[in-house]
């Protein structure tokens, strides 16, 4: 889900940075001071989770879990993922600093959107375990799919020559969507059993 350094056109990279800066500012404003250590711990946990290799068919994929981040962190997903992506760019050269703005938008916007959808679905009626599972699955899968679409869009906006590349990458990510959905759903139901209300009440804010 990372666009490497040097791939994006200047205009796309710059507008990505501007929009992400607004998102980070919004996320920081929404965060209580006491939530900073909790958000930092969750950021470290998501960073760790992104190193996990999960088998799919003959190959492996690495987890993104942006849907789970949206459910647990809400708007704080922006600063949290910004720190995680910055560390990844710095330590492993996944993505890069110039493409960090676009990469952050690609991951955080779907996460926040599906996080809000999840909270909305939980608020309307006290549903059972199945409802919780279903909404969490939708958030996990939907956010990865939306991210894949946005990635293709960013590549296409950068240069029309990337058309085939964007579509191929989107197709690759489409496969990992259901896996992300399943893992998100199982994690959320597990968390709800041990800490009732944690995910339903809008996470750790």
């Amino acid at each position, binding site marked *: 889900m990372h666009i*490497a350094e040097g791939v994006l056109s*200047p205009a796309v990279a710059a507008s990505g940075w501007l929009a992400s800066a607004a998102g980070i500012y919004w996320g920081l404003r929404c965060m209580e001071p006491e939530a900073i250590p909790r*958000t*930092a711990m969750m950021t470290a946990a998501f960073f*760790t989770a992104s190193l996990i*290799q999960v*088998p799919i068919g003959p190959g492996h994929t690495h987890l993104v879990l942006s849907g789970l981040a949206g459910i647990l962190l809400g708007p704080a997903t922006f600063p949290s993922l910004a720190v995680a992506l910055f560390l990844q760019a710095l330590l492993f050269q996944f993505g890069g*600093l110039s493409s960090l703005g676009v990469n952050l938008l690609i991951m955080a916007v779907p996460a926040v959107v599906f996080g809000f959808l999840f909270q909305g679905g939980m608020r309307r009626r006290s549903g059972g375990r199945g409802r919780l599972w279903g909404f969490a699955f939708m958030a996990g899968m939907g956010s990865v799919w939306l991210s894949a679409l946005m990635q293709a869009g960013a590549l296409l906006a950068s240069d029309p020559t990337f*058309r085939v*590349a964007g579509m191929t990458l989107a197709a690759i990510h489409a496969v990992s969507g259901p896996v992300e959905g399943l893992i998100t759903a199982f994690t959320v139901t597990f968390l709800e059993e041990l800490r009732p209300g944690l995910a339903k009440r809008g996470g750790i804010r």
Partner: protein
Amino acid sequence: MSCLTWIPGRSWIHRVTPEARLFSALVLMVALTIAEGPWAAMGGGVLAVVLVGLARLPLRLLGHVLIRLNLVLGFMALLLLPALCGSSLVESPAVRPSGNGFSLLGRMVWKGNAMVMLYLALLATMDPMALGLAMRALRLPSRLALLYLLTVRYVDLLHHEWERIRRAMGVRGFRARADRRTFRLYGHALGRLFLRSLERAERIVWAMKCRGFKGHYPLSSRGRWTTDSILFAVGSCLAAVLIFALAWIR
């Protein structure tokens, strides 16, 4: 094993203060991203090589990093293959390619390598904690700097926690397969990781409050600007201007 690695050393760049290096990295990043054209790219590449030389980066490590980067870029190039061969897939009347595939590929590879070398020389040569304090000194939001510092502090710890959980699963005969049961167990293991990290975060909040945390810490926000670091920052601004000028004479 720690997953937070950096390159210690005693070169001239290592002696420049972290604030000046972060500032220079940001300025040069903007210049390299925005400036277009072969001359600007050439200038950026030369600059990156000079900085790598000044930082005396170990060549083995540099090679590893660049090989990994170019494998990723090579994968992108593979996806660009239809465009390189001039397939009709790309040339639809609605979307006209802005340049040919080869110039795009060249820009991608050249800029990508130059930028990664730049970060390795300027940012990977300082310890991640110093980088957090440098963010604060450059007046980035204090909450963001604190979030970064705490994350850096606990990444290794949680990584070890995850390895412990994973080992416990292994002892009980768990083997990762592509089936529902594997995904359920992964979900539960991740849930356990998140719960443990939240419980630890509660204890951290209490410990921070005991030490006078009121939404922010009195982190030293005044940068240390020595003569060397001022020279370095001014030099990189000049280099950025030069890159822009090279783009302009295209």
